[in-house]
């Protein structure tokens, strides 16, 4: 296993973990752009652009792009989030050059008018699909409520209105501000011929124009409160909470993620024993999400409407109690075993290694090997976990309830 890097003259970073033993290779372009980099008027443009990237370039039609991806037997996809857009493909090593060639070409899309209008319909279908799925737009709503005016509160999908109003020209404007080479990294993992890769990327991406993108990393002013969304034809009630968490620059994020596993993992956690083992809820969980400059911790419960009020109160009691009493050494030890095992299993997939490298770059973090990541978790002490608990009080939050109940109230 060898970590290799190269920077093109225009600023594009190439970061690769080469493993000659691997059966496959995984590649991805990681772009530091997402909903937080949009203005309100073009809400949803990052995600729409992600779709349009597959609609062809001056060298390829949309149909050709799909054909080539399938001809390589690639497993490919793309995703857009609050602060990143990622395009990735896994292939057999023999397809390295053609897949790098294709992905690179896609990064300079044509944004043709007729493709734009057809794909707009697909995006609207995607928005409608999520409107039918729990928690029925609740995630977008609580992000907006919690982050207030901060751009992290922007919806990734946008709305039917903002997406309908988008034009190819507006998208091109956004593209030209965000997809500059210094704002993009090419990550790879697995059985990679690095020399050939650099040669191919120089050829395919070396001519990309250099310019300077910006992003405000100001810390959000997190809002607290209680909001109810009435959804009469939902069978279950959904409870979402967002509380402050560490940003991706802060070392305490490791302790926070272990704290969140101890309290909210899907098995053996405090929430598990309180809500799932007893059958008081259908699902209950917690996760820490760090962004540049800001962070959040989300708690999620889905339960029968008649249990919702008492579950809200149980949840608040549990959050206060764990902060007052702290967690135990036994809980920490079990969480470490779980995380260690999870790291080993995840690292065996080439695709996961590529994501790990790209994601570290997105947050401007230095590269860490699997062993270094495991050691960081292993070294955490009980004091550090309890410090995270006190730094980020879970019961001081924005709460959103979605479902048939319109009479729920915050826990006293």
């Amino acid at each position, binding site marked *: 296993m060898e970590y290799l890097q190269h920077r093109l003259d225009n600023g594009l970073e190439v970061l690769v973990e080469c493993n000659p033993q691997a059966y496959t290779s995984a590649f991805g372009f990681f772009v530091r752009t997402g909903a937080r980099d949009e203005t309100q008027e073009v809400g949803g443009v990052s995600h729409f652009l992600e779709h349009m990237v597959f609609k062809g370039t001056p060298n390829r039609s949309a*149909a050709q792009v*799909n054909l080539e991806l399938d001809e390589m037997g690639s497993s490919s996809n793309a995703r857009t989030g609050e602060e990143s857009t990622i395009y990735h493909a896994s292939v057999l090593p023999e397809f390295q050059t053609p897949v790098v060639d294709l992905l690179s070409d896609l990064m300079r899309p044509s944004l043709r008018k007729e493709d734009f209008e057809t794909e707009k*319909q697909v995006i609207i279908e995607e928005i409608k699909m999520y*409107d039918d799925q729990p928690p029925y737009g609740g995630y977008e709503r609580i992000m907006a409520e919690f982050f207030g005016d901060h751009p992290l509160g922007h919806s990734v999908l946008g709305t039917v209105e903002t997406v309908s109003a988008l034009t190819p020209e507006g998208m091109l404007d956004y593209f030209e501000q965000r997809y500059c080479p210094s704002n993009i990294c090419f990550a790879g993992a697995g059985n990679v011929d690095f020399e050939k890769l650099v040669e191919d990327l120089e050829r395919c991406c070396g001519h990309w124009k250099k310019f300077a993108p910006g992003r405000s990393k100001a810390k959000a002013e997190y809002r607290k409160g209680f909001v109810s969304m009435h959804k009469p034809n939902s069978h279950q009630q959904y409870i979402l909470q967002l509380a402050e968490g560490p940003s991706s620059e802060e070392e305490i994020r490791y302790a926070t993620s272990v704290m969140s596993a101890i309290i909210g993992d899907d098995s053996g956690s405090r929430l598990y024993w309180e809500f799932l083992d007893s*059958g008081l809820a259908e699902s209950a969980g917690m996760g820490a999400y760090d962004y540049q400059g800001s962070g959040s911790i989300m708690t999620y419960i889905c339960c029968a409407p008649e249990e919702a009020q008492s579950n809200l109160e149980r949840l608040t009691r549990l959050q206060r109690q764990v902060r007052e009493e702290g967690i135990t050494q036994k809980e920490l030890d*079990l969480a470490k075993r779980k995380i260690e095992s999870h790291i080993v299993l995840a690292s065996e997939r*080439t695709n996961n290694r590529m994501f790990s490298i790209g994601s570290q770059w997105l947050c401007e973090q230095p590269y860490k090997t699997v062993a270094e990541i495991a050691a960081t978790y292993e070294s955490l002490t009980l004091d550090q976990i309890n410090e995270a608990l006190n730094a980020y009080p879970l019961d001081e939050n924005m709460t959103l309830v979605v479902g048939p109940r319109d009479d729920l109230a915050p826990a006293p």
Partner: protein
Amino acid sequence: MEQQILHHTYDNGLTLVAQPMPWLESAAFSIAVPGGCRFDPQQQLGVANFVCEMVQRGCGAYNSREYIEALESLGVDYSSSASLYNTNFSGAMQAAQLNDALAVYADVIRRPTFPEDQLEDGRMVCFQDIAALRDDLAQRALQKVRMNFYGSTDGRSCEGLLETVESITLDNIRQFYATHYRPNGLIIACAGKLDWASLKSHVGRLFDDWEPKPEPAIELVPAAHGIDHIAHDSEQTHIAIAFPGVAYSHEDYYLNRGAIGVLSGGMSSRLFTEVREKRGLCYTVFASCNTLKDKGAVLCYAGTTNERAQETLDVIIEELQKLAGGIHEDELRRLKVQIRSGMVMQQESCRGRAGSIAGDWFHLGRVRTLDEVNEKINGLTIESINEYLADNPPCDFDIVTLGPQPLEFKANGISATPA
């Protein structure tokens, strides 16, 4: 790529099947106990699922909390579920812990204590499994079409009904356990970094003194085919279609799989191209092969806004019928490389392999090696697939729509709306 499959059937009928993957640091197991929801009595629908919950609420010397702590201290990422034929327990972990994890599961499978004070919590969890599906509109449409296609025994889903789960007693649970948890027909599949000789003797120590039991009888309810609509005030209409396919164990399986791969294999597949790429009718559309032991189905799904739902259904049916006209050389070429690449990628995951060899053993009584599958895939020709399609054109569609309005079904001169 080398692939070694090892197996041993103990005297009591329990089979251990394993694939050493020495390049990994991890290992995984997948255990199939031959008691799935297919065996639920009509009055006790959901009992297999309830038993799966209860065997983990006290077993051997563990109470429910100690059981989960035992797994967590071994770093096992575990899961369990009842399915149609079997109840499955699976886990993945660092390789050194495999034997200890299997010992915990020997307690689950052989020595559950069924503590009375856990019964009502267990029932609540089963109620939650039922509730979880009610807000999942796509799953509801697919479940209903499966039920219509296979009949209410083989097409059922394991959660059961609120009223049957409500009435299940601890005695019912003990009875189901006593009948269906047995070594004969039980499969333990392991994959990853493992030592075959030590694994074989360890599993033998854990299980080979367990006496076999008689094969249980089953009551089969026949299918009720047709076109169905579930009225729901939703943003999208959810369309689910089922039609006859081929069982995994049947010699024509790969011919059908090839044809359906052309229909819905990748981004250049026919459904994705015609429904989503050209017309922008939906975000999700797919067709996939579904298999029982002795028969198969093709299941299709699309979710689309209500105004465009009729057009979506029409285009899908048109593509299904067009498939009978045959596939093209370039489609087959892409399909072959996709399947080959998918098989190689699966070799990176011991979890995927353990599940897959357990499934092979269940359906075939052996494991198809990569070489064998490769040979079958390479042997597919345009002529063989097109001949198969001409003889077995997609037809006899069962359709379920879920949304505000029923749709009209038009195909080959037949036109119908839900009864």
